[in-house]
């Protein structure tokens, strides 16, 4: 992925073997509804990429396309496979967690383990059992008897025990309380990710995954509206807490977003590559306290309609 891109592209080293995911003009419609409107993607191997967008933006359709569960048009390569033609081969090296409710409810926990052990050549049963032994999950219980948090723990145990190159998570912590959500991401980072795998996460709870991400993609109405590396995001955007006497000066610097706060406004500025076109950082410091904006702030600025 290129350091900074705009206008609906998330491009990097086109067609490079380093790309875990490469898509060109990915399209999908349901009847008259266009879910994906010509999306291009390049996600490098080893990246932890957040796919952020409002409800109905097309996040799930993108993720389902990546694992061959949705018949999207366009060019698509996921860790060297076309998921539409070789889903079985792809899923030997990729895992997908759709959301917390998808494990088969009628099976016992041990049955699920047995099944994955039988059908997945890269599943390490002992590793899954070790992980489960650190939880309160009873192996003889049926999935429907587990709490949402436990189901997620079970799913995570299965995924972490599979030696995969790509992990795709679609709202994996939806409906969980904050303790389970935090534990989920902690374990993902400490017990699964070792820098070799590529992880793509879609979520509404941006603030919870912000610190994990190396790459970021904003999607809206089936199009990518913005994408960047996280390091670049920090260089690229500046948030300034401006007091009322400096509002007019701040407005002259063309903020991309502003929101009222107690006693002032927080202005968000985007610094272009062309330094002639945008002010020096020191100019911002004269306006007020300068900080790095959160992903949620940038998201609101990019998708929320701009200036207040």
């Amino acid at each position, binding site marked *: 992925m290129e350091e900074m891109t705009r206008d609906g592209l998330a491009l990097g080293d086109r067609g490079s073997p380093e790309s875990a995911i490469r898509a060109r003009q990915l399209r999908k419609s349901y009847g008259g509804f266009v879910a994906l409107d010509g999306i291009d993607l390049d996600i490098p191997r080893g990246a932890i990429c957040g796919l952020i967008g409002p409800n109905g933006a097309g996040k799930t359709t993108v993720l389902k396309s990546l694992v061959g569960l949705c018949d999207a048009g366009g060019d698509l390569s996921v860790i060297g496979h076309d998921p539409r033609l070789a889903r079985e081969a*792809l899923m030997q090296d990729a895992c997908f967690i759709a959301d917390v409710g998808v494990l*088969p409810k009628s099976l016992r926990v041990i049955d699920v383990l047995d099944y994955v*052990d039988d059908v997945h050549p890269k599943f390490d049963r002992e590793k899954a059992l070790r992980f489960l032994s650190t939880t309160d999950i009873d192996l003889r219980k049926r999935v429907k008897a587990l709490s949402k948090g436990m189901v997620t723990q079970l799913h995570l145990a299965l995924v972490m025990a599979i030696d995969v190159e790509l992990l795709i998570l679609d709202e994996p912590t939806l409906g969980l309380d904050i303790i389970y959500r935090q534990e989920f991401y902690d374990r993902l980072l400490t017990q699964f990710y070792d820098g070799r795998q590529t992880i793509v996460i879609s979520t509404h709870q941006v603030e919870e995954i912000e610190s994990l991400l190396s790459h970021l993609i904003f999607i809206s109405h089936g199009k990518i509206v913005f994408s960047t590396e996280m390091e670049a995001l920090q260089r690229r955007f500046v948030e300034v807490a401006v007091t009322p006497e400096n509002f007019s000066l701040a407005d002259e610097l063309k903020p991309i977003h502003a929101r009222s706060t107690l006693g002032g406004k927080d202005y968000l500025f985007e610094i272009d590559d062309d330094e002639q076109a945008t002010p020096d950082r020191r100019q911002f410091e004269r306006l007020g306290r300068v900080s790095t904006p959160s992903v949620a702030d940038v998201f609101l600025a990019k998708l929320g309609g701009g200036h207040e």
Partner: protein
Amino acid sequence: MSDSSAVTLAARRWRGLLMREIRENRSLMLYAPCLLVLVAVLLGLRLFTLFSVERQTAAMDLLFNRFEGINALEIAPLLTSAGALNLVFIVGIALSYLATSLYSDRRELSYLFWQSMPISDRATVMSKVVTSVLVIPAIYLAILTLGSIILFISAAVYSFFLGIELNGLVELVSTLSIALGFIGLSAVTAMLWLLPAVGWILLFSAYATRVPLLWAIGGLVALSLFEQVVLSSNTLEAWMASRSSPWQYLVFSLDDLGARLFTYDMLFGAVLGGILISGAILMRRFAD
């Protein structure tokens, strides 16, 4: 990968696929046959107790001594015919299972979990076919055999206390075993003959958004009515009727088995079933 490890992997995968079907359908595949066999055993015992001790003694004497010296292969078909009702149960269980087999995981969204495993849609659908044609008859037969053994041992012990000699024991066991084997073969034969029905139901199970069995039956009725009204013929109805009697599938010998399996009608049914099953695989693929 060596050939042997590829075979081991494939065998494990199929074990996983078939065990999944059994584990997900315990009620239908295990508990329902157990209940049926238990009811049959209890009814048999209840009927037996209605008779006087003299009549019971005579019946046990007949059972254990009438078979002495007989050819088990000649007598077994009688018992097989008596067990024809089991075919109705087996086919009923299999078709009920098929109706929800590709539907229930879509309804509860576990479809996304199953699809996240390295298993093709073809393998998934074929595992349903194998389950209906082989696994369900095998499980039913195992439960039926267990019930027969319990009933047989009870009768032998009771006869022993009545002072009846068990001279025809070996022949009786042989006859029972052969009859059970024929019932098993008949069940598999029936399911193979019903491959068009298997494919038809799977097709609706893979795509219907609710009550797939109703859609499958409704579809057949609609096609049949269409033929009668538009073409003024009833070929479909007659063809379905020609495959609806359990008696026609009863196998009484290995020659019988060959005669029922290797016919053009069977071949036609297998091809039609194959086309419908392929349709179900495609439906599964696009049911997102």
